[in-house]
């Protein structure tokens, strides 16, 4: 047993010694295999990293360029908007009680009836005189050579050079009326255009879109502004219609034969009751206040 152990020990020592002192071949070939694996791994990692980086850079570049474009577009838009498009409208309103007189930047004058509104673009008013109207207004337009004046209502377009005219365009009234006092006014409704001269009116019936030109029958169209009512041999039924429209009160003639009586009178700054009293005296009629209307009758 002892000899065996000794010889075994000799063998093992020999193995150790010989193997340790041996020069092993293929160090370079084996290293190349390992290097391939090392670099391969790293290459893949690097490639992945690079790809991610490239993607990220690409994206961020794209994002930057998009952002820059947007900023540029916004800036340009703002510039264009500020200098060419941006329109600040100046607006005038009137209440349901009082009419107002406004002087426009070009020297024109506008009287605005109750419950009305005008608006115009501030910046270009001097070059391109455009004015929007809702409700009723009387215009006294100062002529500027080569520059017309336009009034836009929801339904018609009025173009003038220098005139005095009245536009009645309440949105809750069925008829739009343009009445010319001086000068010439062009009124357009879609493809129809009328040239109105003093004493002429255009009437638009919004309900059936009927658009006509006629002699102005309403001599008192300016009353709301002037507070002056004028009647020249006007039949009483016509007078009553005027009063009804001006004062928004229902007036009824109950006696036959009164309709056609002519009235010659001028009333300035008078209320309905004062006017009715005056009429009663002038025409010798009896006027009574009903529940929701005024009743005119032949005295008994």
């Amino acid at each position, binding site marked *: 047993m002892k000899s065996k152990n000794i010889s075994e020990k000799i*063998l*093992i020592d020999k193995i150790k010694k*010989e193997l*340790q002192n*041996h020069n092993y071949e293929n160090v370079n070939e084996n290293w190349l295999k*390992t*290097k391939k694996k090392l670099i391969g791994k790293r290459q893949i990692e690097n490639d992945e990293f690079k790809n991610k980086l490239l993607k990220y850079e690409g994206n961020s570049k794209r994002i930057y360029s998009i952002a820059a474009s947007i900023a540029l577009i916004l800036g340009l838009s703002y510039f264009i908007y500020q200098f060419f498009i941006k329109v600040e409208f100046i607006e005038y309103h009137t209440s349901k009680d009082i009419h107002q007189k406004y002087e426009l930047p070009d020297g024109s004058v506008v009287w605005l009836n109750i419950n009305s509104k005008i608006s115009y673009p501030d910046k270009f008013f001097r070059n391109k005189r455009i004015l929007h109207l809702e409700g009723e207004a009387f215009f006294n337009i100062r002529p500027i050579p080569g520059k017309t004046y336009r009034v836009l209502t929801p339904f018609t377009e009025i173009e003038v050079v220098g005139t005095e005219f009245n536009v009645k365009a309440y949105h809750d009234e069925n008829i739009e009326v343009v009445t010319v006092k001086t000068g010439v006014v062009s009124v357009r409704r879609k493809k129809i255009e009328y040239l109105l001269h003093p004493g002429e009116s255009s009437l638009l019936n919004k309900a059936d879109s009927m658009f006509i030109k006629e002699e102005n029958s309403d001599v008192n169209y300016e009353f709301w502004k002037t507070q002056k009512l004028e009647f020249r041999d006007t039949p009483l039924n016509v007078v009553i219609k005027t009063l009804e429209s001006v004062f928004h009160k229902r007036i009824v003639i109950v006696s036959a034969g009164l309709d056609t009586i002519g009235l010659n009178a001028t009333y300035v700054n008078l209320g309905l009751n004062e006017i009715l009293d005056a009429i009663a005296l002038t025409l010798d009629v009896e006027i009574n206040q009903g529940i929701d209307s005024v009743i005119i009758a032949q005295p008994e």
Partner: protein
Amino acid sequence: MDKNIQLLIEKCYKRDIRAQEKLYKLFYNYGMSIAVRYSHNLDIAGEVYNESFLKVFKRIRIFDPKKSFKSWLRMILINTAIDYYRKEIRHSCHTDITECETIKYSGDVIEKLNAEDIIKILHELPNMNRIVFNLYELEGYKHEEISEMLNITRSTSRSCLSRAKEKLRHIIANNHEI
């Protein structure tokens, strides 16, 4: 530890490929001398060494510089080699210990053996026997440790060792004794 090795290892932290090459080649003989004992041919020994060094480079940061790099490398080499043959391990070494016969080595014969002879002889051993022989005789592990390392019973470890010795004697006797 050697300052040069220390420096190389530090460079390997940064995955410096030149440092890795130097370290790989510096320990090639040492590593191969171990790998070759566990493998059944030189190619496998090379693979074991390569695989071990991939592990070395991967785990270089957890290497304790106060300890011997050689010992650390040896541990990795042995484990790599064992892993290489692990599939076979459970199905080997079912030999009876009883037939262990005493065969005397002639001192002269052993003296004549060179490295190439020894490698050949070792490669002729069944894989499992060779591994246990290495672990027990050359590494100095006990059967208890070997049984844990290889996940086998102690008796299997013993039986593998005696089979290895027996085979060695036969191989040496047949090929190298006059």
